[in-house]
Every structure is written in structure tokens, then in C-alpha cells.
């Protein structure tokens, strides 16, 4: 096999293809083959073993899990390199012709949670319109398209929006358990999307009064159709995410099978090229597409150059 093979997160996929394309153009190696399929599936594939019919790199929009590392170990993939190359912002947007919104996590919790606090007591969610949730918001029926439970984005939504809202409204104290904050109403107001952001966009098109959850880069490519909502009065952008002002974001990774380094032609070069300033830097094509560049990129570059394997998860 003479080309690098990569699989995993669909969030990372666009970045990986941009890098792969540029890599193929500028190096004498063939362009790597990049597959989507989801972070979990990608890590599983990487851990299937060592050899030409297994992949070299797993893209992941969340950190690798201990169970994956164990699986890798049982299949002889003992050394893995973890590369964090940037951040992904998650935004809330609606149809451009509708009203614009300014949310807080508490608004989302009150709009979508199965149980909310009314007069200090937990009751089944009675809110019908955004204005019921927060008088400052438009009097528009609540309808939200959120990522399905298999998406990493959902995990971020659960943690950074719902849990934060849960705490802010005081529901956490009554519910007692963080996980209970994740329970959503089932009356069709919150719709899980198993597909991708394009499906969410199409659904917004069919339901003009809905609000969808998107990745920052996806939104940036569709600013003529979508109007983005602020969160805690912060407008999402690569800058506000990088500075940490905009709260809803997550790191992006890829994992390299060390046994293949120096064996699969171009693998080392690809990894280095990916994290180079030319690509992943704040002015590189990845940032242009919507990646929030990692402020600690140079540390990553050093790590890649040294081939430092990953330390055990703590």
C-alpha cells in the first residue's frame, strides 16, 4: 500500500480533505484516502490491528476512550500518537428571514428539557414559544433541530448548554444528577437529526421557524441563508472561540498509529504538514474554512516532530 489511509469523524473530515489535497499537490506522495464514518467508528478501525489492510490515522472530534485504547492494545496497536490541531465552535442559527436570537444556556434548558423549574418546583415543560422562555426572545414556536445522540456535537450540547442551563435555572439542585439534565421533552419540539448539518439546513428550509445546531465552519459557508444566534451575548467566530469567550466549543484530534510511521510512505510527512503553520495556523486554509486554530499549535508541532506517543488517559 503506498498511500496513507485515514478514517473517522465527519467533523474533522473537511479539514482532513483540505490537508490531504494540498499534501498530494505539494509532495511526491499520493494523496491520502480520507474516510468519514464517525469518530467512534474511525477509532475502532484504527484499533483493528497493524498492517496494510488497516488504517493509519483516526480522526476524532472527541478524545479517545479507554475502551478504544484497550481494544488497540489487544490487537497489537500499542503506541498511538494523539494530535490536537484546533477547535470547533458550535452555533445556533435560524433562517435568515426570521428574527435573530440571543440565547443563554438557561433559555435552551427551559425550552427543551423534559422538566423545568417553575416556582421552585420541577414540572413537565410547559413552554410553547421562545417568548415563554425568555420575554426578550421572539414570540415564535419552539422547534429545535439538534444533533442525534450518536454525534459528538450532541455531547457538547448536553454538557455546555443543557448542563449549564440546568445549573443556572436551579434545576440541577432539584434533579440531583447531571445526567438527568440531559432528558429532553418528547412532544416533537426537539428533533434529533441523525444526519449531517446539510440535513439540518434542509430541515430549516422546510420549517422556517425552527432553530438548528451547526458547526461554526458550516455556518460560515452559509451566511447568506442563516442568521446566527449569540450565546451569553457573544457572537460566535473563530476569534471568540479561540479566546474562550464563546462557550460552546470542543477540541479536534487525530490519532496516528505509530507502528505505521516511517513505514507507510508519506505518513510522517502528512502528519507534520497537517500541523504546520501553513495549514493549521490562524491564517491557513483550515482557519479560512472555519477551524479555530489551536493557540498551542507549536507544542503540537514539536510533539509530532519527536513522535511522542500518547500518555495513558488520566
Amino acid at each position, binding site marked *: *500500500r503506498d498511500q496513507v489511509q485515514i478514517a473517522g469523524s465527519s467533523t474533522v473530515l473537511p479539514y482532513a*480533505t483540505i490537508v490531504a489535497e494540498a499534501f498530494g499537490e505539494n509532495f511526491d506522495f499520493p494523496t491520502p*484516502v480520507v474516510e468519514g*464514518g464517525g469518530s467512534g467508528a474511525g477509532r475502532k478501525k484504527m484499533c483493528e490491528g497493524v498492517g496494510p489492510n488497516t488504517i493509519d490515522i483516526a480522526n476524532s472530534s472527541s478524545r479517545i476512550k479507554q475502551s478504544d485504547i484497550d481494544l488497540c492494545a489487544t490487537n497489537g496497536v500499542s503506541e498511538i500518537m494523539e494530535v490536537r490541531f484546533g477547535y470547533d465552535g458550535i452555533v445556533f442559527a435560524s433562517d435568515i428571514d426570521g428574527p435573530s436570537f440571543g440565547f443563554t444556556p438557561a433559555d435552551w434548558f427551559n425550552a427543551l428539557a423534559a422538566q423545568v423549574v417553575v416556582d421552585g418546583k420541577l414540572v413537565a415543560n410547559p413552554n410553547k414559544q421562545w417568548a415563554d422562555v425568555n420575554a426578550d426572545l421572539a414570540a415564535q414556536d419552539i422547534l429545535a433541530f439538534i444533533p442525534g445522540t450518536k454525534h459528538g456535537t450532541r455531547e457538547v450540547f448536553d454538557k455546555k448548554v443543557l448542563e449549564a442551563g440546568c445549573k443556572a435555572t436551579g434545576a440541577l439542585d432539584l434533579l440531583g444528577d447531571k445526567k438527568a439534565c440531559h432528558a429532553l421533552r418528547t412532544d416533537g419540539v426537539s428533533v434529533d437529526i441523525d444526519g449531517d448539518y*446539510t440535513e439540518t439546513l434542509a430541515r430549516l428550509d422546510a420549517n422556517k421557524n425552527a432553530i438548528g445546531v451547526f458547526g461554526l465552519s458550516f455556518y460560515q459557508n452559509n451566511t*447568506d441563508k442563516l442568521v446566527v444566534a449569540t450565546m451569553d451575548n457573544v457572537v460566535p467566530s473563530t476569534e471568540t472561540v479561540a479566546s474562550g469567550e464563546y462557550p460552546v466549543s470542543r477540541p479536534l484530534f487525530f490519532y496516528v498509529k505509530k507502528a505505521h510511521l516511517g513505514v507507510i510512505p508519506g505518513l510522517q510527512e502528512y502528519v507534520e504538514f497537517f500541523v504546520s503553520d501553513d495549514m493549521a495556523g490562524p491564517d491557513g486554509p483550515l482557519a479560512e474554512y472555519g477551524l479555530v486554530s489551536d493557540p498551542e499549535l507549536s507544542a503540537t508541532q514539536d510533539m509530532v516532530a519527536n513522535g511522542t506517543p500518547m500518555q495513558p488517559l488520566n
Partner: protein
Amino acid sequence: MTDVTPTTSILTVDDRTRRRNVAEKRFRTYGVIAITLAMLALVGLMTSIFSGGLPAFKQTFITLDVYLDPAKLDKDGSSDLEKIRKVSTFGYAPLIKKALEEQLAKPELAVEGLKSKDAAKMISKEGAAEMRRFVLANPDMIGETVSFKFLASGRIDGYYKGRVTMQSAERDKNVSPQQLQFADKLKDAGLLKTSFNWGFLTRADASENRPEAAGLGVAILGSVYMMVIVLFLALPIGVAASIYLEEFAPKNWFTDLVEVNISNLAAVPSIVFGILGLAIFINFAGLPQSAPIVGGLVLTLMTLPTIIIATRASLKAVPPSIRDAALGVGASKMQAVFHHVLPLAAPGILTGTIIGLAQALGETAPLLLIGMVAFVREYPSAPPEGFFDPAAALPVQVYNWTQRADPAFVERASGAIIVLLVFLLLMNTIAIILRRRFERRW
């Protein structure tokens, strides 16, 4: 009794016949309605596919004279190819920017408020790559001014296809009204043209940053390879299995089991065939990831039940007297089947093949698990080695493109569907013609 006058005239239709004729008409109308519905659905779908996809076959190009500046491309003037090779595409981008700056400086082309950095964005990022390829192939041209026909970026292209308007550009982060004005001026100056997009059929896929450069070349090859495998495996195996089950197998619980089993396989979700393919062909047999051979084998297994069910149904429909006639002149059962029964069952077999291949050609889910739903830019080599090289497939390309953020990919996805349908028709034409030949009544 002796009265010979006719009971009824046949020229006047009696009540009961009238009622029956109404029923007949109604029945016939149902048929017409059914066909009309099917045709309407077809026309509706076709219209939406074609209206969405036809623009993909046109592409906007910008012709520019670019000075291949030795100061950038061959810094030490050594003309050493190794060193020229070191200059990456990032090094070529400024040359394009410079060339545009020159155009922008011309009074008739000047647009107020348009920065040269933004003007450079009107040219596809593929432009730099094309220039680099050109220079590496013709290093002696460094220092000359060369005219390049660059792809316009997706948004500019979209402007001439109605996807982007001045209004939408106001709100669009990736394009500004000034850029559009400049494009219009370039057009007036004859530097910007729209022409047929051969690249759409021949180029490989491109990344999110350059939808205008994305093409179907690799996907078409991958689909061809897979269909060759499917056709040459699924058709013979399917027909052979059906012949055995229908004509030779003793009718007992075991053949019942096989029959039920085959119907059941038809109901297995296609992704499960992907799981099977991953387990058996890649993990067990050690075949490579992302390769058409694995895709073809998986699709073969998926198509088999369709062909078997169709073939058996049409073998059943051949009247036994034909078999008797052949056996009666001393043909063996095998000869009777191959000489007489099979030709009569051919229309049904071909129908099964048509439907089975259509399904196989359009299927994405099983390919998901064997690594074929991927970004592949290298063309697979010629068969048989090519069967083992990574490749994409047409439905995969459609699936990928519909998931991308840039709206230009939506149009390409529809264009890819048109290609897929044309491919399907080409593939099926032979089958359709053959089927018409074999159709007969007796």
C-alpha cells in the same frame, strides 16, 4: 322455440355488458392512472434532478496572463528542478494575486472598494496547483508571462448560474458585491467565460475549499470497476443458483429452507452486507480497504437475492410442455433447460439484472463500512490491479457532496446523479434491448 329472432342485437350493448364494460373501463383507467402516477413521479424527480444538476455541467473560467516570477519560483536562479519543486502551491498564489492586481488597475476594470486579496479569492485555489504543475512540466517557462485559463471560484461560478445574487452576496461571508461587479467587468472584457465543464467528468474529487474543481473521474472509474465485478459474478451465480433450485433440486424441506433464506437475504439491510464484507473480505481474507474488489463482492452478495428471486419467478412461468417437448426428443434435463427454458425465462432474468444492478449502482450504505465512502483523489490503475486500488463510487460521491457545507456542492451532487442515471441507462440498454428480443408469447 321456432322463433329465430335474435335474443339481443349485438349492435346495442345490453345492460349487463354495459356494466361489465364500465368495470372494464374502470380497470383500464386504474392502469392508466397507475402509469400516469409512476410517470409523474419520474418526471417530477427528473425535473428536480436535472434543474438542480445541469448547471454542474457548465463552468466559469477566468483567463489571466500570469508572470512566472523567477524571484518567487526559482529564488537562486539555478533552474534546479529539485529546488523549484520545493516551492509549494502557497508560493504560487501571490503570482495570481499580482496578475489580478494588474487587471484591477486598468481603468475599465477598476472596482471601487475591492482589495486585491479579495479579488484573488475569485480564482479557484486549484489555480495555484495548476500553475505549479505547469511550471514543473515546463521549468524553462519561468520568467515568461503565460496565459492561464483558471477555474473561477464556486461563488463567482454560482453568480452566473443564478445561485448567488447581489443581495445574497451582501450577507455572504465568502463573496462580496464588489467581487461580482469585478466579475461582470471581466466578462465584458472577454476574460471571464462560461463553457462546458469537462472537468466535472474527468477530475478527481476536491476538498471543501474548492468545489469548482471537484469532478467525478475517480468515482466513475470506481463504479465501472465494481459493476464489472457485480455483473460477472452476480448474474452467473444468481442464474445458476436459480436453475438448480427451480429445475434440479428435489422439492424438500432443504430447498424450502434455501428459498426462504434467499427471500430473507433480500430483506437484509444493505449496511449489514457492509458488516459482512468488513468481517470476511477485509478482516478475514485480508483484502485492502477502500478497494473496488471488496465493494464489488459486497454488492454482488447484495444483488444476488434480487436476481435469484426474479430468475426463479420467470423460470416458474415457463410452461412444462416445453420441457416435455425437449425431453421427448432425448435432450437431457440440462439441455432442455439451457436450450429452451432459459431463453424463455430470459426477460425476467434480465429484469432482475436491471433492477439488481440499478440497486447496486446506487448503493452507499454497505460501502460505508469497507472504506469506500472516502475522499479519493488518485485514479485507480487499470484492471486487474486497479480492482485493488482505492476508489470512490458515484453514489458515494453524491453522498459526500450532499454533506458538504459549500452550497456549490449541492449542484454538483445533482450533476453526479445525472451522470449516475446516464451510466445506469447505458449499462441497462443492452439488457433492455436483449429483453425485448426474448419477449414472446406462445
